[in-house]
């Protein structure tokens, strides 16, 4: 198990739901929880992953996500069981969609 934490500046998200939960903790998959966070221009990401040594790839995936979507003012918790970046990116956009009610 490895714990990773990242923070990115991003435009503010407009939540439609208090929290959004997406995905499942299963092999090759992950669970993503998005909820309001502080400050409003920052996205805080906390990752617990079963696969060690991929911190640089996680940082790149989340940075790309934060650059493409307004995710400021959120805290994102991720429980990962070896998901590939393809699955991570898909789950992130699904979770954000639920959190903002489709408005991105």
């Amino acid at each position, binding site marked *: 198990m490895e714990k990773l934490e990242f923070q990115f500046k991003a435009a503010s998200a407009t939540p439609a739901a208090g929290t959004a939960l997406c995905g499942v903790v299963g092999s*090759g998959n992950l669970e993503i929880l998005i909820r309001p966070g502080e400050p409003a221009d920052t996205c805080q990401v906390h990752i617990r992953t079963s*696969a060690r040594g991929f911190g640089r*790839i996680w940082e790149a995936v989340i940075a790309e996500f934060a650059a493409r979507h307004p995710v400021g003012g959120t805290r994102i918790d991720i429980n990962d069981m*070896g998901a*590939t970046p*393809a*699955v991570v990116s*898909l789950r992130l*956009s699904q979770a954000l*969609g639920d959190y903002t009610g489709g408005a991105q």
Partner: protein
Amino acid sequence: MNAPHPSGPGGWDTRRQGRQRRLERAAAIGLGRLVPAARVVDLLEAVIEPGDRVCLEGNNQKQADFLAESLADCSPERLHDLHMVQSVLALPSHVDLFERGLARRLDFSFSGPQGGRLARLVQDRQIEIGAIHTYLELFGRYFMDLTPKVSLIAAQSADAAGNLYTGPNTEDTPAIVEATAFKGGIVIAQVNELKDSLPRVDVPADWVDFVIVAPRPNYIEPLFTRDPAQITEVQVLMAMMAIKGIYAEYEVKRLNHGIGFDTAAIELLLPTYAADLGLKGKICTHWALNPHPTLIPAIEAGCVESVHSFGSEVGMENYIAARSDVFFTGADGSMRSNRAFSQTAGLYACDMFIGSTLQIDLAGNSSTATLGRITGFGGAPNMGSDPHGRRHASAAWLKAGREAGGANAIRGRKLVVQMVETFREHMAPVFVEQLDAWKLKESMGMDLPPIMIYGDDVSHVVTEEGIANLLLCRTAEEREQAIRGVAGFTPVGMARDRRMVENLRDRGIIRRPEDMGIDPRMASRDLLAARSVKDLVRWSGGLYAPPARFRNW
């Protein structure tokens, strides 16, 4: 000028004489056309001679497994230095031939599960590999310089005269038998049963010398069955991109799908997503394809007009027989497959090949070779190559040709699409600076690296990141950046030139899902026409009978 020789050294019919000598040896030990299974080793030792070129039938579906095991049981003192020519090295007995010292040289196409053992034999110098071929190449050489002296084949049933019925898995049998029987060779068939009369004759009796009823039916692998339950949302997303960004835009009607979950996802989106886009009848009407169970919903929805198959698929027999407008079937109702003809269709009559691979380099070369394994190619390189000899036009072929060669292009192009997720399991990147094939070439002493599909034949690369259209690239550098641009977070992808990739995106060479109007969040398994094997059975009206390992109900 010299007068023509009255005959060659030893006469002009040494092969016929050799054949006669072998048949007489078999007769001398009391063996006629029908040989009891218990005497198969006697037969093989009588008709095969040291140094013979022997063809052992077997593909990744049907296997002449009893004859393969029996040949491996022969005495290496009697039979040695054999030159094996065969499509697929799949069974342990195939490799036993070399380990036991019966065979020395091998020309083949594919080795799949025996790839690791084969690599060790090469390194231990217990085997000489002539070449790793594509199927069509190997069949072609059966009629040139690799004509078998003895062929060991498999069929479903024989009658008393020796006519053979292959059942739906005709596969390679006609090509092998023709090359052998008409060049003074000997054909030995294992069959599952003797019948008074056959449903149809696939191989006439006078092309067959010996028939043996095997103690158990020949093995057939259900290789082309993919359980829809295992298709992921990322695969659905990639399938949506392929359909909207390639199939629809090029109006691809005639095609081949490589095997895998990526292409299974496309098949299962044809009656749903593609039909909703108004594409029914406009794409995917004619196929060179094994009877994939995942194509059943598209067939039932009326999206498919014709399917010609390399082989059959376990469990699909009754469904195929009941859909004779779609599949090629005999007067008896059952399928007749033919690998050589279907490969020809895949090479020359298809507008598109789409398939997956394990590694892609910066020039678009792809390979399934990994270190320590020699797996070969099978049929993908025939389908996944642009045949420069093609002359007939189609919308897809012309559009691709003009994208590659400009408005005045004098020929079209086949679409050769590689569809991969950027990472495989265990975070192994698919995109690499150098293919493992190069290291394999060095360690195995090969002439060439085992590349499955040459980069200059590849027209598109599809990943979860988008589609790279290599036809539109004008320089090697653009090609490299187009590939890096869809390589995601692999080291190759992260080393992209961001400015150049954005420029390629502006020119439509790289397209992201959103550029095609695809929202990744819509990529749901709910779009699949069938989400389980049971759904496939239901679509087939109960005609599809999946093998036990695919049934969980």
